[in-house]
């Protein structure tokens, strides 16, 4: 029973979504399913927040190593929640100036907006910036020409990287016009457009078929492992 009900919900919702893409009559049903998903996700968020609170509170209660950070997490969470839900500092919407809560939560002057703009965005950018270093370290370790395939990949990567820099233009600028296709910048475009696109499409076709088959397995109830291992 515990398995049958969710399975049927999934199957029906899935078919509705599928049909709504083709049959206008079911479109609104499809939208309803989408709405239901959003509602469920919103309810689940309470569970998520609960889990966050529980894990961190337990940490504080047990005085685990680094429990201070857990406290900070919870305090920040509470502050953001209060200023966001309470729309503190939010100027009222110009259309309804008498309703204090009518403004957008991250409108100018709101604390929530301020937190977003001046705390979250810079922190996020910092994390993102780390990526450059990770790319460098991964490339350094991974690009070793130890077999034919690796050599091919390495030389292709080299052409593309050079072709995207001015050095590439300078290096092969002397090539006459009739051989301009061999200029690094053109070669790099050519590789990206032809070989890369081709390879990518092969993967994408595979993925598309995979997605279709996976969806079908779930819709037909053949695959129930998403609810936990089959038996």
């Amino acid at each position, binding site marked *: 029973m515990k398995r049958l009900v969710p399975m049927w919900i999934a199957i029906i919702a899935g078919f509705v979504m599928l049909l709504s893409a083709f049959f206008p009559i079911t479109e609104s049903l499809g939208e309803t399913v989408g709405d239901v998903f959003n509602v469920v996700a919103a309810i689940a968020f309470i569970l998520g927040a609960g889990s966050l609170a*529980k894990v961190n*509170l*337990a940490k504080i*209660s*047990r005085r685990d190593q680094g429990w201070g950070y857990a406290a900070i997490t919870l305090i920040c969470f509470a502050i953001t929640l209060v200023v966001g839900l309470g729309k503190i500092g939010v100027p009222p919407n110009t259309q309804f100036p008498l309703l204090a809560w009518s403004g957008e939560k991250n409108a100018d002057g709101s604390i929530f907006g301020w937190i977003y703009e001046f705390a979250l965005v810079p922190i996020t950018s910092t994390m993102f910036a780390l990526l450059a270093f990770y790319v460098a370290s991964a490339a350094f370790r991974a690009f070793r020409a130890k077999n034919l395939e690796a050599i091919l990949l390495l030389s292709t990567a080299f052409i593309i990287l050079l072709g995207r820099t001015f050095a590439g233009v300078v290096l092969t600028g002397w090539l006459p016009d009739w051989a301009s296709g061999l200029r690094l910048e053109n070669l790099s475009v050519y590789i990206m457009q032809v070989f890369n696109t081709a390879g990518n499409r092969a993967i994408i076709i595979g993925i598309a078929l995979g997605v279709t088959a996976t969806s079908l397995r779930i819709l037909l109830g053949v695959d129930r492992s998403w609810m936990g291992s089959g038996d």
Partner: protein
Amino acid sequence: MAKAYTPGLKVTARTTYRVRRLLPVPGDVRVKVGDSVSAETVVAETFLEGDVFPIKVAGMLSVNPAELMPLMLKRAGDTVQVGDALARSKGIFGMMKTEAKSTATGTLESVSESTGMVIIRGAKTPVQVRAYVAGKIIEVIANEGVVVETDALFVQGIFGVGGETWGPLMIAGKSHAEDLLEEHINASMKGAIVVGGARMTAGGIRRAREVGVAALICGGIDDADLRDVLGYDLGVAVTGSEKIGITLLVTEGFGDIAMAKRTFQLLLAHAGKMASVNGATQIRAGVMRPEIAVPLGQASSGEIFTGGATAGILNIGTPVRIIRDPHFGLLGSVSALPEQPAVLGSGSKARVLEVALESGQRVIVPRANVELVGD
């Protein structure tokens, strides 16, 4: 080679049969030297240590094993029932406490601070050892068991399945060469040791199990029938612990083969007497063969037998059984013992002997392919 031992099976009309009846672990012996016992008498009993049930309590409470001790509600030595709370967590600021419940009944033996595992020892299980044969206690091995002695008709089989059993000896067929069929078994044979002739057929075995025969003794059995009885294909001849509700014993081997006439007649002569049968067979180093003992309850014959493998030396005239095709199962006596190895049909060279078969025919077989018959 200095000596050549040839294996054989013991079939003897009268011998002093001694059997050691031992407990698996030390316990109490219930009889004393000189006591007369029947097959069913309990001669020794003890308790086996209870089963051990480990419960990972720390994991159930999601606490560190080292922190488990203060949370335990039960201590080592306490008795616990299934469902009893063993430990309770502190929870978050005193709320949301969780309990670890016992999944076993028994005594709490230990709590480990390294793994957070609690060991519960289940109740002890009683073990009893019975005398197995009617006879006299001639020795008591303190805390371990006894030796029972009786004067008995003793027959070793070649192969058996099922464990120890006893009951009145009954004869199902008319001759040693007659297959044991379904119609040979009747309801009066419930709890009896039934002796058939040649092969025990599938129908015969089925009927015997229905009726509740304690043991079936025949010359042979078909591999396929054995597989049906056991439910699997026997790979190695180490048996005795099967739970099939009947003990089967064959005296000659697999296939269509008649019981040796002498064996049949010996058993026939004692029909109606109480017999003890053990189907346990172990064909490995330390050979164990299945056996039938019929206590005769009279004066000792002098020879003492304690079971195990027997072996003897071949001489001209020694009665033998051929135990490998092409002459499998035929009986005869040694008529010549050539010293030099001979080339066999298979191309191997081996030491051989000549057997004069009961039919009068003389055949040459490898020495490895005969076994001694008789005492």
